[in-house]
């Protein structure tokens, strides 16, 4: 059987990749994809723990709910990106810089 640690390493690596993507990507859609990585790293953790930790079954339910919430959030985020695209004709987040100070 694959030990629990392996799942945790994968999840931690995904989380780090997601954070790295959020910090370095300038395209709003790429940033959203990186955010999905963060959510899914947490999901891997949840499902792995609920499989390996005795008596813990709630994690799988949690993971399902996270998938639903992530879908909602992605829908809202893409709607906002679309709306901004209509005004700016591009999706580079550095262009969204009128608010500062």
């Amino acid at each position, binding site marked *: 059987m694959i030990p629990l640690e392996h799942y945790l390493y994968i999840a931690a690596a995904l989380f780090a990749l997601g954070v790295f993507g*959020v910090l370095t990507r300038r395209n*709003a859609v790429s940033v959203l994809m990186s955010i999905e990585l963060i959510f899914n790293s947490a999901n891997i953790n949840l499902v792995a723990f609920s499989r390996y930790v005795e008596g*813990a079954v*709630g994690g799988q339910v949690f993971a399902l709910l996270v998938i639903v*919430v992530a879908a909602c959030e992605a829908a809202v*985020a893409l709607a906002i990106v679309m709306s901004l695209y209509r005004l700016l004709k591009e999706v580079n987040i550095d262009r969204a810089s*009128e*608010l500062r100070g």
Partner: protein
Amino acid sequence: MSDAALSLTRFIPELALVGTLAVVIVADLLTQRWETLRANSLLTWIAGGGLLVALFTSLGPPGGGALFASMIADDGLLAVLRPVFALTALFVLLFSLRARELESVRMGEMVALIVTTAAALMWMAGSVNLVMIYLSLETVSVASYLMVGYLSSERLSNEASLKYILFGAVSTGAMLFGLSLLYGMTGTLDLYGVREALASGAHGPELLLVLVLIAGGIGFKIAAVPFHFWCPDVYTGAPTPVTAFLSVGPKAAGFAVLIRFFYSGLATPEGGSFLPIPGSEAQTLLIVLSVVTMTLGNVAALLQTNLKRLLAYSSIGHAGTMLMGAAALSSEAVHAIGVYLVVYLFMNLGAFFVVILAHRVTGSFDLASYAGFWKRSPVLTIAMVVFLLSLLGMPPFMGFAAKYYVFIAVIQADLVWLAVVGGLNVAVAAAYYLKVVMTMVIEPGEASPPAFAFSRLDAVLLALLAIPNLVGLLFWNALDGFTRVSRQLLDLV
């Protein structure tokens, strides 16, 4: 009665809001062909009625148990915060009728979103289960993103919304990762189960890591430094009533979640205080967060020339003051935060309402456009001075009570140096609040500016917000009594 049926009887305010939401959505569809103004006022009055029902049904003593199989705590903290949320949403709803930005826009979705957020804030304040905390926090967040970006043809509103959602998604993602690790460490999603599991063993840095990740999500909601970057931009870009809502509602709910985590989940109650689980460094974390948050918030507010931005940084400063109270880890601290949130509702919503009314006439949020305000509208100037001095914590006004309770809680926890830092911050805050007062009263301004006109609704709202601030201290006992129940945190073990 079964647990679910019994829980539903203690869940009337939330049910009323969900019902109102359904009615608002249908009414919005039925009034598609009406002219905008008429449809907007009908929807506002429907939602206002629903919020009033929620407000009155939420008053009363707490039930004292857990609802829906220990998902939601029906305790004193929830009993204090439910009316706060209903009242905030009610004020914001009426503000949005008067805001210039929203005047020619159809308000169907906005009204629905305000009602949704009010219900989700109530869920958030009561959550004692990791899943429930995450779900309610995300419900509030997604509704807020949509409200901030409501003016879809305006660049600033869109930009603010994009920044908010990108920042919010990363923060809640980090929090979720922390929650998943906490679940792995304890094997349970129940906050009291988490405490039980944590208390039985020793912990190293992994618990601190989890705590920092979770603090990221909560810090985002209450706009604590270093998770505050979204705050000034979003407050400036959002329609002003939404800004007012965000500065009070989610902040209050965020503090409720913070108390649930740090007091119920990660500390064991002993007498009147809460002892953090060894290895969690919860108190150090809260102290560091509070010092950084209030100092940066107040100092940055000094440099602002836009009143909405200034109030954004001032709200960061207030979050720092409340965090200072939270760091005391005692029942007094919970009570102090309860008082602070109730008082903060009146003073901060009041300040934003004056900004909304001024924007109707001047069309600007710049501090410079407030020059000569005294000559144009003495009533509005006096109201603004009352709100600002109350925010500062000046004694004859109600803001003093808020500051008093927090400082007493901090000093009783033997954190005198922290109280001194807090005191210095009040001095810094005085500089920028008084700068606004000076601009309004002393600077000359234009020679013949357009006059202010009040509607009857404006006068009523202004009075409802200003009078509690003015005579608040006369009702010190009532305020103390109403918020005292917040000390009764649910404890299931």
